[in-house]
């Protein structure tokens, strides 16, 4: 089973305002994109499990022209809260890299 790091050429995360984090998955090739564009493994449950977000908040939009999907989720706590560890959300992508896809 391939890992996200193996089918994407680039994965990045960043705040989208103080209350959201957005993750961009840029796929390595057309085959990978076709296969995982709508993969259920990249669904709300994954983001609830890894980030503690409300699965109902998770938004997913594929951008075919850029061979990527954007997945955004509500931060469990706003940016800068007392136990903040990642002010920009820029390291949140890392825990996704080893997630296995079917």
């Amino acid at each position, binding site marked *: 089973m391939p890992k996200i790091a193996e089918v994407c050429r680039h994965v990045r995360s960043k705040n989208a305002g103080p209350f959201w984090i957005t993750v961009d998955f840029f796929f390595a090739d057309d085959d990978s994109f076709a296969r995982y564009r709508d993969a259920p493994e990249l669904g709300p449950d994954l983001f609830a499990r890894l980030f503690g977000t409300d699965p109902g*908040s998770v938004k997913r939009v594929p951008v075919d022209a*850029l061979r990527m999907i954007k997945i*955004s989720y509500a931060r469990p706590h*706003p940016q*800068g809260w007392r136990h903040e560890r990642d*002010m920009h959300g820029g390291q949140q992508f890392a825990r996704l890299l080893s997630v296995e896809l079917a």
Partner: protein
Amino acid sequence: MSELERTVTKVIVPSGMLGAGVKREHIAYGLAQGAHAIAVDAGSTDSGPSYLARGVSKMNRESIKQDLLILLQMANEAGIPVLVGTCGTCGADSSVDWTRDIAIEAARELGIGLRIACLYSEQPAAVLKRKLAQGKIRPLAPLEQATDELFDACDHIVALMGPEPYIDAVKRGANLVLGGRTTDTAVLSAVPLMRGAGVAQTWHAAKIAECGGQCTTNLRRGGVLMHVGTDQFDMEPLDPGNRCTPESVSAHLLYENSDPFLLVEPGGVLDATEAVYTQVEPRITRVVGSIWRPMPYTMKLEGARGGDYQTIMLIGIEDPEVLANLDEFHDRMHKTLVERIAATFGDEAGDFEVSLRLYGWNGTSGRPVPADTPPPRDVGVLFVVTARTQDLADRMARSCNPYFFHMPIRFDMELPSYAFPFTPAEIPRGRVYEFMLNHVVETEDGFELVRTEWVDVSSTGTVEHLETPNAQDR
């Protein structure tokens, strides 16, 4: 002049952030192409709630002045206006005034006259409570509806302006418009909209250009020149060696944006779903097919406050016995410190919290580490205590000192000393700042919650605060 030249508005976007640095040759290139304005953003929430809660800038005064000296001098020579959005990082009234005073100083040094329009969009809680009672405040996910108490709790509240007050200021003769909190796109949109460029094309171009060179292939080589027409726009780098490609331009819509196609702005939504990006020249990408859907006018609200206080301490550990049992060490240390504080401070402790972050193990995420992970070579343990005053947090940290620096991994061993790098070891870190609002307010138009003030700087350096000049109906 061709039809195209008459109907295209060109705006120099020198960088993504005033104070990040600008190069004279980049501005000169944009001016040589016939730019109608220079527009730049100076704010962001991305650095966290501290700036809005305090009403201060993240950037140094020196950095802002350095950029303004170049922009004001070159715009003055070319006879075009400079527009700055979200002055001083957070766009509070105090940040606009701070930027205004730097601009006055810069104009005096340059010996140029300047008519400055200051746009203020900070909101008193009372105004928003009235709006709330009128049913004109709505929450944005994931927050819930606001309350009077929520507005009262904020130290500063700002409403994000649209382009209308900027357009009005330029029409009335401002050479420099200094705006409070504004959407990143609105400040770049103002002059194209004023000159009749396509509405969808303008907002889309502004979204692409909002971070300057981020939409180019080499983001360290200066900003961009927006060419906005009536049914298309072109994006061109200011540096002759840099390029805008369909990928670099279209990818920027993804940036710090939760939806890759839709962008909600004051008075409408930009829909870029059907946009087509084409390389029309080696350095220039053209975009067609953007759509603008007008909506009732709303302004987004941001609010922040200062809360409790924190004190931090740091130790390094290379003892292999500790490194082999880090999770156990963390849990025992945490329990020990919480008990120590509770026992020492009793009722005075109040609602305190202790957080230990093991950098080199799981400090970035705080999440459990897989069972088969080998011990690291070195960890840094960051101690963070949160309490209701700085003095109390400092005293709590000091009370933890003997335990944090000397807690053994086994009880049958002599007391270790972990490697602490500073003395005194505890560092008062200051307040925890919080974002409080993610709401929109309905307004009559782009002016209802905005105030404009005018300042004239003469070429001899005298400063005059004006009544509204050239009063005219909007």
